[in-house]
């Protein structure tokens, strides 16, 4: 079991304006959320972040790396974190670009406190969901990875809908051996039924013949 400090969500605020940073930090803390603030995108990239549900409140216009640049960097590094963009201009092309890249929300300055808190809550909830999905997928992958090469071959043919006899022919083994492998596969992947096994393998996007 993980400790509370490691699962408690965290909000990252990046804004070059100290007073805005402090105001947002105070506002977010007031509803009992953890906050970390950064004066620039570089600072944010430099620190090691905890593996907990999180969201990013990001000023679009900043010296050095802009908000949009950071978004691109994160997506290139395959770091998935919902981003709430804050802009002083409400510039439409910029919002479109940010949204296309998967921004969670786009708020214009000055942001109403309640709007910001609502967006943060939604973003964290969505990150939690995503993380749950990802974790589930990782677990499934770990289980499937534990299969032997032979078992993997049998698995592929099973989810393709072949009967034991057909699989035995295809792999030049006895039907009994196929049954044994199949039982191991069901056990190792913790599949409750054939349908469950198929769903899991689809999630992993296993290649099928």
């Amino acid at each position, binding site marked *: 079991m993980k400790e509370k400090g490691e699962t408690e969500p965290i909000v990252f605020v990046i804004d070059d304006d100290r007073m805005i940073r402090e105001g*947002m930090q105070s506002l977010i803390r007031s509803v009992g959320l953890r906050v970390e603030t950064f004066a620039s995108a570089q600072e944010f990239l430099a620190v090691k972040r905890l593996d907990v549900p999180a969201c990013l409140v990001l000023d679009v216009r900043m010296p050095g790396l802009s908000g949009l640049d950071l978004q691109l960097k994160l997506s290139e590094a395959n770091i998935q974190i919902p981003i709430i963009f804050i802009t002083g201009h409400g510039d439409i092309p910029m919002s479109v670009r940010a949204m296309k890249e998967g921004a969670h929300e786009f708020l214009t300055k000055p*942001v109403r406190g309640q709007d910001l808190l609502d967006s943060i809550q939604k973003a964290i909830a969505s990150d939690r969901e995503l993380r749950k999905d990802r974790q589930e997928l990782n677990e499934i992958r770990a289980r499937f990875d534990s299969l032997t090469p032979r078992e993997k071959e049998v698995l592929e043919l099973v989810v393709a809908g072949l009967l034991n006899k057909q699989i035995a022919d295809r792999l030049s083994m006895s039907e009994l051996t196929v049954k044994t492998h199949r039982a191991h596969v069901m056990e190792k992947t913790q599949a409750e039924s054939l349908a469950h096994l198929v769903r899991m393998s689809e999630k992993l996007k296993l290649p099928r013949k």
Partner: protein
Amino acid sequence: MEATRAKPFSAGPLRYGVAVALVAVALWLSLILQIPFGNPFWFFFAIAVIVSTWFAGRGPGWLAVALSSLAVLYFFIPPYRSWNVKPQDVPFFATFVLCQVIANWLISWRRQTEDSLRRARDELEARVAERTTELKSVNEALVTQMAEQKRVEEDLQVARTELARVVRITTIGELTASIAHEVNQPLAAVVANADACVAWLSRQQPNLAEARAAADRATQGATRASEVIVRIRSLISKVTPEKSRVQMNEIIQQTAALAEGQASRNNVVLEFELLRDLPLVYADSIQLQQVILNLMMNGIEAMTGVNGRPRPLIVASQLLSAGHVQVSVQDFGIGVRPEVMSRLFEPFFTTRSKGIGMGLPISRSIIEAHGGKLWAESDGEHGTTFRFTLPVGEGSTG
């Protein structure tokens, strides 16, 4: 051209006819005058030859020579009215013929010289006329060109007026955007902190310390917003210069506060080398702020393309021996190419896509109106330094 070269008797046979007629007249006069006076008047033959050669040409001249020789031989060399010549009269007759020949030759030579002279003159006249025509057409083209140029200049003037109007509008637009940003930023801080304050107070157990801190920050934000407005208003409200005795270093520092945001957004570090106890200058502080702000903004802009080395913008003040205060703004940007250098202060000249090319000309006119000078010095590829001087305390009244 042909007309000017025409001779009195241009038709061939007619010219020979003239020679014959002249010799006939000379013979008739000689014979007539011989009756009362006894002596033969053969001078008339000489006249006939001269006149024939002169007016009718060399050929008729020779005919006249031949005819008059025959006439003299027949009528006036004994034995008269016979073609015979006595041996003692041969030298006399030969001399006569020789004289005629010489006369003809001399006259025709003279005539030829005169003809060629006349031809030369005619040609000259023709060429002069030709050149005159050419000059005339060139002149007409020139007049057309000048009219065209004048029209273009008028168009240019119209375009300039239009541009000036656009510049005014653009400047107002840029200024509005800039004001919006500068004011919006502290307002955002006010809103965030005020919301935080309310949030801390609304908790079941209000956290007064946090609420107070947030309220304090909200107040700071509001103060900053109003300061921005005051600065911008003072920058744009005044039109007529209001001179007073001002401390240049103070003006530099006030202006730097305005440029700080732009500098930090571009990773530019502002550095100051200000001379302490700088004497006061008599100037319009707002206009000086405009000039310094313009130079600083240019410097910051010049360094946006620089990577891999520090980006300081050095603003310095100095006292020159001649009783002038000098301010310099030095950037370490990409430098200014020589061909651009000479045009820096031209109105509407700009190297930036968004520039309007009026910053430096306006700055220079402001400095010159204060009795100073503004110029640029290139540091090659390592940047540019703009300097201006102002006379110390001129026109000061305390």
